[in-house]
């Protein structure tokens, strides 16, 4: 059993880590509830909690900036995640289960791509997309997003798949299950957690993108939220956009917090398995 002193020590350490992890989020949350006059109060807490900023981005002046961007972010990130996870599942299955020359080349390529400076991709694509009509479209972002989501998906899934007891599939077939039954009852339940975790990690990365977002879009047709936030200043009518930006920032942080709360264990194992094994 822990002594009281040790318990107190852990309580202090836990509080310190919580402050570290959550203070900036709390800070922008407080800003989002300040009234325009309150923004320059120089205080952490709003003198009065008001929802003006949220009204502004959902029904007010900033609506036309924020709502299309939110829709773009959700759609583009989900599609890019889905394509990456499907392709990476096939690829990682081959790496984990089959013997073929070039296995290492595929993994090394994934590693190289994940190190690639995004800005070096954006410049040529900016030029090409304008010529082929992909500039400022969903597809024009989904394709480069694959350079962000595919490599990490392949690595994470390959690590997951290498730990799956695949022999169970044959065991099920020996016990009289059809191929389809063995797949559905054995393989899917075994692989689903890894695939799902990978999807969350890939989604975080797509959701986070900023460089492609500002480099390859020019209007609300495809501009995702992070890029739109940077444009709140110039395009909107009101003077200080801090309140509206903070409210929008909180809205796009909610899905992240929900996913983290629900799947903490899976995300941690997914992030650590894909990377280091000594």
């Amino acid at each position, binding site marked *: 059993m*822990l002594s009281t002193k040790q318990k107190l020590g852990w309580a202090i350490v*836990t509080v310190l*880590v919580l402050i570290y*992890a*959550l203070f900036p989020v709390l*800070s*922008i949350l407080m800003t989002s509830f300040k009234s325009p006059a309150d*923004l*320059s109060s*120089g*205080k*952490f807490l709003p003198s009065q909690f008001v929802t003006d900023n949220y009204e502004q981005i959902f029904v007010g002046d900033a609506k036309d900036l924020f709502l299309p961007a939110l829709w773009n972010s959700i759609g583009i990130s989900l599609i890019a995640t889905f394509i990456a996870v499907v392709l990476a599942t*096939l690829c990682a*299955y081959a790496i984990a289960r*089959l*013997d*073929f*020359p*070039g296995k*290492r080349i*595929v*993994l090394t*390529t994934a*590693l*190289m791509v994940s*190190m*690639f*400076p*995004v*800005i*070096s991709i*954006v*410049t040529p*694509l900016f030029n*090409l997309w304008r010529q082929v009509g992909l500039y400022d479209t969903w597809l024009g972002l989904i394709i480069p997003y694959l350079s962000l989501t595919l490599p990490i998906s392949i*690595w994470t899934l*390959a*690590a997951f798949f*290498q730990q799956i007891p695949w022999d169970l599939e044959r065991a099920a077939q020996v016990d009289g299950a059809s191929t389809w039954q063995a797949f559905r009852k054995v393989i899917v339940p075994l692989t689903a957690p890894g695939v799902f975790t990978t999807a969350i990690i890939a989604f*975080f990365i797509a959701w986070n993108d900023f*460089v492609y977002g*500002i*480099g390859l879009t020019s209007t609300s047709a495809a501009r995702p939220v992070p890029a739109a936030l940077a444009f709140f200043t110039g395009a909107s009518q009101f003077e*200080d956009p*801090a309140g509206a930006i*903070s409210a929008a920032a909180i809205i796009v*942080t909610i899905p*992240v*917090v929900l996913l*983290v*709360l629900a799947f*903490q*264990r899976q*995300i*941690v194992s997914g*992030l*650590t398995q894909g*990377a*280091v094994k*000594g």
Partner: protein
Amino acid sequence: MSTTVDSSTRAPGTQAPKAKRQISDRVRAERKLGWLLAGPAFIIMLLVTLYPIVQALYDSLFSFRLTAPGDKEFVFLGNYATVFSDSLFWQNLGVTLLITVVTVLVELVLGLALALVMHSAIKATRGLLRTAILVPYGIITVVSAFAWFYAFDITTGYVNNWFDWVPGIGPDFNWFASQGPALTIIMASEIWKTTPFISLLLLSGLAQVPGELSEAARVDGASAWQRLTKVILPNMKAAIMVAVVFRALDAFRIFDNIFIMTQGQYGTEALSLLAYRTSIGRLEIGLGSAISVILFLCVMLIAFTAIKVFKVDLAGSGKGR
């Protein structure tokens, strides 16, 4: 590759020629299926990176502005000469290197502390700690940038009020009007957001250090600090190196935080911003491409040095077991 060799050398005398051909047929079918499944992902990865960098390499040899597309002219390495003779480039390279070195060092220390806390945390708080630490990891970098910016900004901030007892800080202190303070906040935001990732990498490295080692050292009378520096850290060197390389490469590409907080003004511009401002901002595709290529080469140089000189096995975990 190795398995094919194995199967033919393992029992050469005992296999009939016919059986051998059957095996090689199966091997061939497996190879085909392997590439069929891995191929699409592989090709897409090449298309979205190899094509742009080759295009950038080509464009970088021309004097080419989108505003005057007719004046495209082959200048060979002229753009590179322009870049290298510009003091702004060297200044930006210096800022980029400074950010990389400082953030990686701070994150390593902070990440190790967090990893040790999570590793030895009692059950009651372990889940809570990991959940909390994942919040910065998942948050959008731009959101982090705004959070830090608004906290320190001269009009919307409160930090100046909280710390006005510190000499030099007062209600009129503008953090974003000079290089040192601005870079400090930019790096703080970067460190806050990416330390969780490094600490998770280190956590899995910690988990691989045999508990008996540390226990034996404790029995022999080693202090906690001695156990950390003499037993635990040397045994997780591989994990530390991988974490450092991944983060260094990431930090070298820093863009979002600077763009949001200062747009690169007051001597805070990093190479990524210079490339962006030149190509997409000023539409000087030739010059911008040259900077992009240089940035790419820098990243490759860091990765190559890490792998060859420091023998970091970045691809180690992907090997079959």
